[in-house]
């Protein structure tokens, strides 16, 4: 495998509503920031790939106008995925592995605020039997949480611990949307939003953007002191019909983690894209993470959940910690679709 690293990551402050900017205006600081940190421009980039979805923007080909943020002139090599930016990153990784390019720019963004997000997300369900019922995304997640609690493997207290820890850790994240220091009792005293989920078990609705710069081999070494090398990356998808899979485990994550080599060494830090508290428990188990691993020190998706972006942010958060020297080996995870339908796992490592 060719040595490829994340050398730069930038994100906008995550907010409930970015009313005063359109998508490209919101995106520009992230793209320009990621490039400027490593003293690069679009002319130094071999391939650009983005993640976003028209369903949030409410218009067709919405990503075309946000491409203005990179200055795609003269014409550039470019692609887009209607998925989280983590999958755009994967597409760029494949091109880097093929040796076609030495550098890549990956970005993702979402303004979820114009629409009714829990309703918009029903459009990713199967359009014949489930979509027409318009089951909102929180209720779907609650079904999964209920199934997990019914196994007896976890309790509502376990869910509360995830929420409390995530919001407390988010206090140190300047881009966090939700951050506070409240105890387990405060959490458990909340009413259910959709039983068995309380409001604090759920992610916020977020507008925001993020960007990452990739580089291979010596190009990466020349740009930063400690590149975050990709040691393994894999993604898997499960059936769209919720009834066809066991919602209390994540088989696709387990396989992706195995292929990516998560268990091949100690994991100092893991950023897990778990929008709902119970999903972190499912994912930790699927990846075999625990013990000495710091889980979601950024606060995770519970502190900010920009659609199509929160997965890419997980990769950036791990890469930043490796480049800063606070971690040597880390795992980043991204998810997409209802109830953890699709999952990507990436192992990153710094040189010693």
């Amino acid at each position, binding site marked *: 495998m060719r040595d490829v690293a994340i050398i730069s990551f930038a994100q906008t402050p995550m907010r409930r509503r970015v009313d005063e900017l359109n*998508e490209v205006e919101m995106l520009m600081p992230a793209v320009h920031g990621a490039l400027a940190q490593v003293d690069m421009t679009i002319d130094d980039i071999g391939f650009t790939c983005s993640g976003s979805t028209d369903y949030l923007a409410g218009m067709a080909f919405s990503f075309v106008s946000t491409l203005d943020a990179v200055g795609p002139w003269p*014409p550039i090599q470019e692609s887009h995925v209607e998925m989280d930016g983590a999958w755009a990153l994967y597409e760029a990784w494949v091109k880097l592995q093929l040796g076609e390019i030495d550098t890549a720019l990956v970005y993702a963004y979402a303004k979820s605020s*114009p*629409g009714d997000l829990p309703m918009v997300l029903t*459009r990713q369900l199967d359009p014949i039997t489930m979509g*027409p019922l318009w089951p909102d995304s929180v209720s779907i997640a609650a079904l999964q949480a209920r199934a997990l609690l019914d196994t007896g493997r976890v309790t509502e207290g376990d869910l509360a611990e995830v929420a409390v820890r995530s919001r407390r850790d988010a206090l140190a994240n300047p881009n966090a949307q939700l951050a506070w220091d409240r105890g387990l009792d405060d959490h458990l005293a909340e009413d259910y939003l959709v039983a068995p989920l309380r409001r604090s078990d759920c992610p916020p609705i977020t507008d925001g953007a993020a960007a990452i710069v990739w580089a291979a081999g010596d190009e990466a070494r020349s740009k930063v002191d400690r590149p975050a090398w990709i040691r393994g990356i894999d993604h898997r998808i499960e059936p769209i019909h919720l009834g066809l899979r066991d919602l209390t485990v994540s088989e696709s994550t387990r396989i992706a983690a195995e292929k990516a080599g998560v268990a091949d060494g100690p994991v100092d830090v893991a950023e897990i894209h778990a929008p709902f508290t119970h999903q972190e428990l499912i994912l930790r188990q699927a990846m075999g993470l625990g013990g000495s691993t710091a889980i979601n020190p950024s606060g995770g998706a519970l502190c900010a959940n920009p659609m199509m972006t929160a997965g890419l942010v997980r990769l950036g958060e791990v890469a930043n910690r490796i480049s800063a020297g606070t971690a040597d080996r880390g795992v980043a995870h991204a998810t997409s679709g209802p109830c953890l339908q699709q999952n990507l796992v990436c192992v990153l490592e710094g040189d010693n």
Partner: protein
Amino acid sequence: MAEIVLPPSIRDVEPVRSVRTPAQLDYEFTAGDATTRFLNGIVNKRIIGQQAPGGRVYVPPRGADPELGQPTPIDVEVAQVGTVTSFCVVNLQFYGSVMEIPYVSALILLDGADLSIMHLIQEIPADQVRIGMRVEAVWRDDADIEPTFESVRYFRPTGEPDDVNVRIPGEGHGTGLGSWVGGVAPTEAVIRNPRTGQGGTTEGGDA
């Protein structure tokens, strides 16, 4: 293909051959910074574009210069007079349209702008509209002006001589099938990079 055996409980039920699942989602858009400034100008019957660091003026502005990939922070008022760079005579009534056919939808390059706007041409028979024709904005009555480009009802001929040298913005950019440079797809070999000034046999612009 294996024969499908239905459970007895639904054997006599009429098979479902198709379903209709109508969907509607409502969105509340905000204009963003650049378009807000543009629409605030419209309320005052002024057409405000934004200038990129490279000098180009975009109307209506989206806030980013696609050539340089940079914000366009400078407001520039452009003229309410311009030149038709392309047009289409619409002879079909389509759903939702309140226009009487035939009517003319045109791309109009306002004086001082580097991007054509799309608007209607009226007060002239459809078959007399032509590329190069000079046109001016006709506004709604003052009481009906709102922050929408529809506050300009349409454009009409000024009576000035045609601008026979008018160039379509992006003509040299290779952004249309007919505008590839010498029949060659626009790449760095033929297009000058506006950031580095390197490459190219053409600026790829319209200067």
